[in-house]
């Protein structure tokens, strides 16, 4: 009996941890200042959050239904493999499109070479000058 109580605790803990991690990941995406910082929330927080929730589902169904249920592992593994790939591609797209980054960013990304992205039909926006003009600064502050 105590075993089931313990399992219930584990499942509840996993569920809440998953929810909190997903929430924090999305919160990071909402509140950070520039695109590259926003990228950090979903790639880490949300991925682990859903991993926790899938684990909880796995344990729960293994307890209440006959047999062992490990199909959730499939989704978990898939997400853990694809999330970094998505993050990488999004970051590369951001670099390619010359998205702005906050002024306190240290170091600057090098210009992507043609061989890194290939010749596309989508026009690349021109690279903005690093010291922004007054109007740009105002817009930047508005944009957060």
């Amino acid at each position, binding site marked *: 009996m105590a075993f089931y109580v313990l399992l*219930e*605790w584990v*499942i*509840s*803990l996993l*569920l*809440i941890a*998953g*929810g*909190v991690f*997903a*929430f924090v*990941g*999305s*919160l990071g*995406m*909402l509140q950070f200042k520039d*695109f590259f910082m*926003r*990228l950090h*929330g*979903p790639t880490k927080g*949300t*991925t682990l*959050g*859903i991993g926790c*929730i*899938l684990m*909880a*589902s796995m344990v*729960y*169904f293994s307890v*209440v*239904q006959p047999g062992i*249920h490990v*199909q*959730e592992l*499939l*989704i978990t593994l*898939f*997400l853990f493999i*694809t*999330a970094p*790939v*998505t993050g990488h*591609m*999004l970051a*590369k*797209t*951001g670099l*390619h*499109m010359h*998205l702005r980054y906050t002024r306190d960013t240290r170091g600057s990304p090098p210009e992507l070479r043609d061989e890194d*992205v*290939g*010749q*596309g*039909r*989508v026009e690349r926006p021109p690279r903005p000058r690093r010291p922004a003009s007054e109007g740009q600064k105002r817009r930047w502050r508005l*944009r957060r």
Partner: protein
Amino acid sequence: MLDTALWISLALIVAALAMNVARLARGPDIPDRLLALDTIYVNSIALIVLLGLWLNTKVYFEAAILIAMLGFVSTMAICRYLLRGDIIE
């Protein structure tokens, strides 16, 4: 207790989805919106799994896996389009 945990988790995921939608609406550039969409996919998988737990059924498992795969492929496709102007070369 399980019910309470489930409710808390559901509330957090729904709040996360709301924030994603806010970013989707506000996002100044295309990659921001793309990131928001991708996160919406992942969060909706969580929502579906929680629904399965709530209803005590595994019927929705396939839906979750389909969303995971389609979400990844579509995000990749849009990224590739933005990067190279072509999806299949």
